[in-house]
């Protein structure tokens, strides 16, 4: 990286960018034709083209949400977004076949190394499509399908057609409509009955181009009694103009299955991150979201679980870090539709240097869902008085047999803690870093160790050079 580039990137470690060597790049802006062109380029079945077009018209008509950070949402210039950019003509299964500049990027992000050490499969998406994909042979032999979404649709059209959009229909919200219209890339996973995927599989999403829109679509189906841990990471270069990331993630956990979906979102501070994530848990199934939001300009994301079958369980652990110029509007939603379902939501947020973090949560218990238990805990930590933290919890409880707990706290770093740590040799920044890492510990301990170490380093970096 040149000194000039480094200066532009500042403290954000992943803000570098590569030359843009697109093989196909659409003109900026969105129209029905753009939607049709994406579908045609991918040679999709007609039902998918029709679905995209319907979703596009819904997107155009649908009002912008009147909640969250409306003023920022209304700043998004949809005409100044590139909706499709192909950077490599093929999805390779050998890193040596991936174009050099792209491979270098993923090397710098440590993906091939992680893959060798501890992952069961990797998909690496660069701009609109996957440039690399692999899965361990033993998983393949057990019938596990792990593909990028485009290949998933090509190779398993009946499975995709059966489940696509069933958890998050395009009409769910404006951005799910947008995603359904222009989706490209993402992961498609099917785990057969009774198969336990022991090693996590990972997807890594990288935006490189300016004013890029990335709209990956992920569909994960865990058949009866199976289990899977899926991990995703995201970064982008730092530009002075904005990019848009609007993904849709649908999870389906059949009877007795378990899906854990872990995210560390570390977009650069020029990315709008507006993502819809929802899972359905059937009888005695478990869906867990482990959701970390460190980067982006504005994130609005509320991982959700629909507890559809008796005895199903939902777990959402989320953290958000909002620094200067950032708004993390994050949280969780759980819908208890069946009896004896249980859920636990833990949300922790940190605001610093004028950053804003909001917890927005929804807990619903329907009249028929007897004997449900739920615990919601939200903790906010403010590192200075310029920053802001809000909580918007909603509870809709339709019967009297539910056992619900809600705890919320807002705290500041105390002078006593700082004095104590500094008396043990830590500088003020190091002390802050320790306190912040400790505050997020209930989240980091749920991550694979490699991620936890990386996240702690990231947070320590955020604490540097910021205390006056």
């Amino acid at each position, binding site marked *: 990286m040149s000194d000039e580039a480094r200066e532009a990137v500042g403290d954000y470690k992943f803000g570098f960018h590569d030359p843009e060597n697109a093989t196909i790049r659409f003109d900026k802006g969105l129209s029905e034709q753009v939607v049709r062109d994406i579908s045609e380029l991918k040679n999709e079945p007609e039902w998918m083209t029709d679905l995209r077009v319907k979703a596009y018209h819904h997107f155009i008509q649908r009002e912008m949400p009147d909640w969250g950070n409306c003023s920022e949402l209304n700043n998004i210039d949809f005409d100044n977004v590139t909706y499709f950019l192909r950077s490599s003509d093929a999805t390779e299964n050998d890193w040596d076949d991936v174009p050099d500049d792209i491979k270098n990027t993923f090397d710098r992000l440590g993906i091939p190394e992680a893959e060798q050490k501890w992952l069961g499969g990797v998909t690496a998406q660069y701009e609109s499509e996957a440039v690399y994909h692999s899965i361990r042979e033993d998983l393949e032999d057990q019938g596990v399908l792990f593909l990028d979404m485009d290949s998933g649709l090509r190779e398993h059209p009946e499975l995709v057609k059966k489940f696509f959009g069933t958890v998050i229909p395009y009409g769910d919200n404006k951005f799910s409509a947008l995603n359904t219209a222009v989706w490209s890339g993402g992961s498609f996973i099917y785990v057969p009955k009774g198969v336990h995927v022991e090693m996590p599989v990972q997807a890594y999403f990288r935006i490189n181009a300016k004013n890029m829109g990335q709209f990956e679509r992920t569909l994960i189906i865990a058949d009866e009694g199976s289990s899977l841990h899926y991990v995703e990471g995201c970064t982008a270069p730092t530009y002075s103009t904005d990019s848009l990331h609007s993904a849709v993630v649908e999870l389906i956990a059949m009877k007795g299955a378990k899906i854990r979906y872990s995210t560390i979102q570390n977009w650069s501070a020029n990315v709008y991150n507006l993502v819809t994530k929802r899972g359905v848990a059937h009888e005695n199934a478990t869906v867990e979201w482990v959701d970390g939001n460190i980067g982006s300009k504005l994130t609005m994301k509320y991982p959700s679980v629909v507890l559809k079958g008796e005895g199903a369980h939902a777990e959402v652990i989320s953290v958000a870090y909002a620094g200067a110029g950032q708004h993390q509007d994050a949280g969780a939603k759980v819908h208890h539709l069946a009896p004896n379902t249980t859920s636990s939501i833990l949300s922790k947020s940190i605001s610093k240097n004028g950053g804003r973090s909001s917890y927005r949560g929804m807990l619903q218990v329907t009249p028929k869902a007897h004997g449900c238990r739920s615990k919601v805990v939200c903790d906010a930590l403010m590192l200075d008085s310029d920053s802001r933290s809000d909580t918007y919890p909603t509870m809709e409880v339709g019967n009297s047999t539910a056992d619900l707990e809600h705890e919320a706290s807002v705290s500041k770093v*105390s*002078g*006593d*803690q700082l*004095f*104590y*740590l*500094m*008396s*043990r*040799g*830590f*500088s*003020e920044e*190091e002390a802050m870093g*320790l*306190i912040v*890492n*400790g*505050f*997020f*510990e*209930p989240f980091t301990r749920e991550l694979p160790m490699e991620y936890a170490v990386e996240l702690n380093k990231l947070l320590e970096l955020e604490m540097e050079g910021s205390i006056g």
Partner: protein
Amino acid sequence: MSVTDEVLRVENLHVSVDDTPILNGMNLTINRGEIHVVMGRNGAGKSTLASVVMGHPDYEITSGSIFYMGTNIDEMTVFERARAGMFLSFQYPAVIPGVQVGTFLKKSVQSVHDEPLKGRAFRKELNAAMATLEMQKSVLSRYVNDGFSGGEKKRLEILQMLLLKPTLALLDETDSGLDIDALRIVAKGINSVAPQAGCLIITHYQRLLDHVQPHYVHVMIDGTIVRTGGPELALKLEEQGYDWLEEPQEVEA
């Protein structure tokens, strides 16, 4: 004692918090290898003395100075003092949620020591110190002071002192709230550090002095030392309290 053995010198120290004077002309010199005990009623300024020597930002020095190893440290930050070899065992150690004791100790030693022990050497020393203090290994995976009993907190303070090997150890009511066994163990820790350091022990009770032999006992009243003696002074205070010291004409025999 030669000049080079001087660890701490407090000269005519006046200290205020929010414009309320707390220390009013303190003078105290501690040399290496000496154990000084400071006693006095609540509010006499004992804890303030320890905090201000460690550099607590809430205390304002209105006049006078503090010298550590012959250097004026008024401008040094808290962590610079720690890195220079000063240590404060807190009366109420702060809770640091989510930070494991093991990680904390390792990082602290790395911050303070120029050439910190690493890997196996560090673990060996840690194990030995924990054995001295009769501490369970399981403490290392707990969060710093989180859910600790009073006695556990004080033992963790002493463990840090053993690992950091300070040149000046300030112990603020480390003996308060300890049962007899814990008191004996904490004293063992102090005695192992004391020969290489200057020690300032703030206490309300004579009983710690059954285990730790002080060279000097000072009595503080209203922010200044009114009387200095040997261990026998602590015994007398235990029997008679502080009232007799306030008789203006009283002269110690």
